[in-house]
């Protein structure tokens, strides 16, 4: 298959069902050959957006452009997009080979050409030996690969994936993640994926778009989103995070200082909000360290271990602090400086660049 990625653009896309807004004014660009993931909790509008792209849902407003051409009004059967449905939607009365041949058959390809393409597609997903089986005779992972082969066999302009791995168990999911990623590299097509699994989004995608309540909250490369979340929702949804609330006390060179109760925290930043404004800092659990006797750090907070758990590769500690409530800290097990114990007094330290100021966009009904 030739590398022929196409670029997709969403312009001001909205979808309303009566008074309910499923998607609100989403604009998004997917570059040629890019792997974009729409990530969000259930009800965030991610699937509705994918269905708009596929053509099954008609947007209330906005446009969908493929290589600059408006395809908003085009019915799904004429868009030429491959799609892997949730649960795969393999045709139960057709063999694997017939399933894969289906899109070629409706395009009226000759028998010889069809057979060659089906074989190539099954080779691509390493299922050449399974052509004569029925879908129900395959495992979940194999069914998923058949769905992929069927969606790719007609060399679609775009591959759409609707929660492609959600039906699989954890180990298989990790395996197929790697496969999917390798497949994307190999064929160089544009992929748009929808998931609620943040790990899957981080490991698969070139770029991730995070959605909540139908709005696009932030988009960017996985590392960018993880390291520099713009809002509390993003920081919380992508990985785990502590949130430190305080008010701006002082502008400093390369950052500012905030105060919360008796504690003063330094935050690296390029600009300083006005003195006295409340701010929220996101601080990842793995970016804190336990300080030894006499050791110093830019920021240091004392607390007591309120609870802990052993996770194999690491310890997760819940440290109760006077000014920031309970902070979650993770330590690698192999060189943990202490043996965790409830009631143990510890000091947490982190650099001013470890945390990020975020907007507080989490309403009470979002609390997980």
């Amino acid at each position: 298959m030739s590398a022929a990625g196409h670029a997709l653009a969403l312009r001001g896309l909205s979808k309303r069902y009566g008074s309910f807004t499923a998607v609100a004014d989403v604009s998004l660009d997917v570059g040629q050959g890019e792997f974009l993931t729409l990530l969000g909790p259930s009800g965030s509008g991610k699937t509705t957006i994918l269905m708009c792209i596929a053509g099954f849902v008609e947007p209330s407003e906005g446009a969908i452009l493929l290589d600059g051409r408006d395809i908003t009004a085009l019915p799904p059967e004429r868009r030429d997009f491959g799609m892997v449905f949730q649960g795969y939607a393999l045709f139960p009365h057709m063999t694997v080979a017939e399933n894969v041949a289906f899109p070629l058959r409706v395009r009226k390809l000759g028998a010889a050409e069809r057979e060659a393409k089906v074989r190539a597609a099954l080779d691509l997903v390493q299922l050449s030996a399974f052509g004569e089986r029925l879908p129900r005779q395959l495992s979940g992972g194999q069914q998923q690969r058949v769905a992929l082969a069927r969606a790719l066999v007609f060399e679609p302009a775009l591959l759409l994936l609707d929660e492609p791995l959600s039906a699989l168990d954890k180990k298989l999911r990790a395996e197929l993640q790697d496969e999917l990623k390798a497949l994307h590299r190999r064929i160089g097509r544009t992929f748009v994926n929808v998931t609620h699994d943040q790990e899957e989004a981080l490991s698969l995608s070139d770029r991730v778009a995070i959605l909540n309540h139908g709005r696009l909250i932030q988009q960017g490369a996985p590392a960018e989103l993880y390291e520099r979340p713009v809002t509390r929702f993003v920081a919380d949804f992508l990985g785990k995070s502590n949130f430190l609330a305080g008010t701006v006390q002082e502008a400093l060179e390369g950052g500012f200082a905030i105060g919360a109760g008796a504690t003063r925290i330094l935050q690296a930043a390029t600009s300083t909000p006005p003195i006295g404004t409340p701010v929220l800092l996101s601080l990842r659990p793995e970016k804190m360290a336990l300080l030894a006797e006499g050791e110093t750090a830019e920021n240091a907070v004392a607390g007591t271990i309120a609870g802990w758990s052993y996770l194999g590769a690491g310890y997760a500690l819940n440290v109760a602090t006077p000014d920031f409530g309970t902070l979650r800290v993770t330590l690698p097990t192999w060189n943990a400086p202490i043996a965790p114990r409830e009631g143990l007094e510890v000091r947490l330290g982190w650099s001013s660049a470890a945390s990020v100021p975020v907007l507080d966009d989490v309403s009470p009904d979002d609390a997980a």
Partner: protein
Amino acid sequence: MMRRQDVGWWLLILPAFLLMTAFYVAPIAQVLAISFTEPTPGLGNYERLFTSESVQRVIVTTLRICVITTSLSLLLGYVLSYRIALASPSAQRWWILAVLVPLWISVLVRAFAWVTLLRRQGLVNETLIGTGLISEPLALVWNEFGIVVGMVHYMVPYAVLPMLASMREIDPRLLAAARGLGANRLTIFGRIFLPLSLPGLLAAGVLVFIFTLGFYITPALLGGGKTLMVAEWIGLQILDLLRWGLGTMMATVLVVAILVTLAIFSRLVDMKRVFGGGGA
């Protein structure tokens, strides 16, 4: 070897089994046995199947009416089921009610209703003459046409129910998937929907066919005694002509025909799905 707990289960159905045998199977077997004993012992009655023109005519007429009725009922029923299966859930309830209501009206009432509609001075003929489309009333009842109309009307709900059940099992995502892969509506229907609804279609076909084979009241009323189907013919032999041997011979043939149809059908389709056995 049967395990002990299995024996327990079989004991549970034993009373019902004995009741059925004593009051249903045994009397029927006794009646059917008459076909071998009256008027003289032997296979004389069955010989008539090959020699008597009137016996053969009844069988051919019955089969012809059954095939036509079954085909029409399936066609109408399929269209109706398709429409219902694709309707919104609230609309589905109204559709199903509309399909089921005729089932609750006496078959006698419905047959007479058709007579008043279709007879020479009936609504249909009067309307057609009134609009000047025809000058002489059409013979719409007391013939095969009338029988078929009445029977199709009776059978459509029986055709709809199994077909609707199997159509509802079709995952709508399959239809969306086919569309997304580039198939137009006709292809989706022909390659996905129709093959997946085929078990329901077969089940409905067998159900309707078996029903029509033994149908009595509707053909008797709408056939006007001129077109005889098997059930009416049996009644005639036994009640009016007192030819018990011939009547029970035909009854035996009817029972065997039904059993053979079911046997062939059970080879084709999983019977549990048709009559709603548990599990998927």
